[in-house]
């Protein structure tokens, strides 16, 4: 038994299947539905809370309000058509979605990706991570501050920076949101002229802004009081639930797919770990800020050395059934801003995948809620939910 796994759990693990009738609190419990439409459930998640006064006794999350049957649709569409579908799963970082799916198809087909395409993929993934963490920081402060208050100010600042990055991607791929940038064998759009200067300007501005956010949030005594020691996850539970990305790195476990299974151009750059130890909300906040800085550093380091050459490793894709991998099975996982985003694809030799399962990190993050919420008051429910950074489009697929 490796030492890392079985560190003593911090708090006795809450029982998510507590029998309500057998609970003897002072009065009877109030059932509160933080329903699918709620200002701070980050999309359409419904939390059924049993409250004793204002303390949560039991929490049952209900998902599925955004289940769009993506896995069934992927079985109906060919390999080439499936990239735009997956864009809309994790709509805050759609490039990383495409990357996971496309790398799974490439592993099935076994084609080789040119070095320039790998560089472009890494830079886009890292800038997408910064944009996604910026949106998370904005909505996280909004959850804490309220619609007409301090939280909105941090929200506006973060979205102002995010617009800069969206301009960058609009210049590269023509779209603000769903880029359809990756394809089997390489990348669809090449870097326009002057794009690297634009990227350097944006990256310099944002790395100058991050201390401003810290000055406004982490040096603020109320913010620290609201986040220190709240929603602590212990290491064993985090691993059993399959948490990944910032959520598990905040618990002190250095599980980063960019380093353990380097893909795209991560083998040519050294990714420094962003770790914290307590595993509470403040640790996740710190890990995400450190990751933003790290991603900007990686993007700046790579942008100068982008090699010349083709951006497409196989013959260009003209028809819809151009990609026809041999029968087989492949699982590829990459490190999206929310954690390990995997695609398990089974192909039966035709131009349509036989089965395509996407492994969303948000679904695993949400499965931690029944363990984290008992014993916590309502304002902390909102803060813990925000700190896990779930995206319902990805969790519900």
């Amino acid at each position, binding site marked *: 038994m490796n030492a890392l796994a079985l560190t003593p759990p911090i708090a006795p693990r809450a029982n998510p299947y507590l029998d309500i009738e057998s609970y003897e609190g002072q009065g009877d419990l*109030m059932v*509160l539905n933080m329903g699918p439409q*709620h*200002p*701070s459930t980050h999309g359409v998640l419904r939390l059924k809370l049993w409250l004793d006064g*204002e303390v949560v006794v039991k929490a049952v999350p209900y998902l599925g309000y955004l289940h769009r049957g993506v896995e069934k649709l992927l079985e109906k569409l060919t390999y080439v058509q499936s990239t735009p579908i997956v864009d809309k799963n994790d709509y805050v970082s759609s490039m990383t979605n495409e990357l996971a799916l496309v790398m799974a198809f490439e592993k099935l087909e076994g084609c080789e990706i040119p070095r320039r395409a790998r560089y472009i993929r890494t830079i886009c993934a890292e800038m997408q991570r910064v944009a996604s963490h910026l949106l998370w920081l904005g909505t996280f*402060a*909004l*959850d*804490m*501050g*309220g*619609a*007409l*208050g*301090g*939280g*909105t*100010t941090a929200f*506006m*600042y973060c979205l*102002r920076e995010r617009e800069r990055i969206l301009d960058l991607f609009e210049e590269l791929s023509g779209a603000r949101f769903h880029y359809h940038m990756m394809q089997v064998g390489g990348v669809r759009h090449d870097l326009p002229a002057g794009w690297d200067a634009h990227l350097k300007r944006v990256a310099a501005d944002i790395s100058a802004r991050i201390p401003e956010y810290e000055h*406004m*949030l982490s040096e*603020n005594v*109320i*913010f620290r*009081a*609201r986040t220190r020691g709240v929603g602590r996850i212990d290491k064993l539970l985090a691993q059993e639930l399959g948490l990944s990305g910032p959520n598990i790195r905040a618990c002190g476990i250095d599980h980063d797919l960019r380093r353990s299974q380097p893909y795209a151009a991560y083998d040519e750059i050294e990714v420094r770990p962003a770790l914290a130890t307590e595993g509470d909300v403040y640790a996740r906040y710190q890990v995400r800020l450190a990751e933003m800085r790290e991603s900007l550093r990686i993007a700046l380091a790579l942008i100068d050395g982008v090699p010349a050459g083709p951006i497409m490793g196989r013959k260009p894709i003209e028809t819809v059934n151009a990609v026809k991998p041999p029968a087989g099975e492949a699982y590829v996982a990459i490190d999206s801003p929310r954690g390990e985003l995997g695609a398990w694809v089974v192909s039966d030799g035709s131009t349509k995948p036989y089965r395509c399962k996407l492994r969303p990190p948000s679904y695993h993050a949400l499965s931690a809620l029944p363990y984290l919420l008992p014993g916590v*008051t*309502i*304002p*902390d*429910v*909102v803060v813990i939910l925000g700190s896990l950074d779930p995206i319902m489009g990805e969790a519900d697929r």
Partner: protein
Amino acid sequence: MLFDSPVLHALILGLVICSALMGVTSYFIWFERRFAGRMQGRIGPEHVGFKGLLQPIADAFKLLIKEDITPRNADRVLFNLAPLLAVFVALLTLAVLPLASGLVIADLDVGVLFFLAAGAMTVVPTWMAGWGSNNKYALIGGMRAIAQSVAYGVPLVLAALVPVILAGSMNLSEIVAAQAGGHWFAFWPPGPGFLGGILFVLASLAEGNRIPFDIPEAESELVSGISTEYTGMKFGLFYLGEYVHSLVGAALFTTLFLGGFDGPGPDVLALQLFWFLLKTSVVSVLLLWVRWTYVRLRSDQLMTLCWKYLLPSGLGVVVLAAMWVWFSQEAPA
């Protein structure tokens, strides 16, 4: 003393001040949205009239024509009375506020006691709205308001005691007179006045349910707290009551700690009124600044703040003020 009968005087002056305050509050809301816009790097209301000046009027008209919904099994009396009471209680404190020497609706000798009592009543409409609207979120908001009101009540009284001790009277006009000639309580006795002022600001922020203490009306977790079920003008009254309370809180702070209408220049009514309004607007802009910077506290953190930190420092400040008064008097005969 108009028409030398206090009742007529109070009636007319009260009418004038309340209607003026309604206009000032609606444009204070416009100013806050522009101010927050500038703070957040965006333009506030812009296209409704010149620079958005007609925006508060448009909001008021829209609230007038909205359908007036009372939830079916809501407590009808409490539900409909709460907004009216919210505005009434917020305006009540105006009665004792001296705008200029002699220009005060009711020059009570127990002015400080009166506005503390009116302040303590602000929790009643919040709870009535919370209980009356038969909505779980509003109920939680209402319960939080009650727990919160006990916590900030005592530090508010202690903070208001400091100017009473320093001025030796509870009549607000005499407190302002005692601060005449630049001896403002916030600065002149360096110890107690300044600390008492900070305490008063924190407690009045909590009393008016303003960020960072807007826990009963917490939009992000309680949908919109106590005013979840209110539509149209009833919600408008709640919104107005909150802003009137923050303006009146700022006016109270200037009266008690910044010398009310005292300022350089001759004691002409117009000049005194100008000084009073200038100081009040500066203080209310500072409160706005606080509102758009800080995040919200949890209710139990507010309790620990009030009971463990504000209360002892309030006692300390009162003792300091008393010692200052004791030693500054010449030895008793």
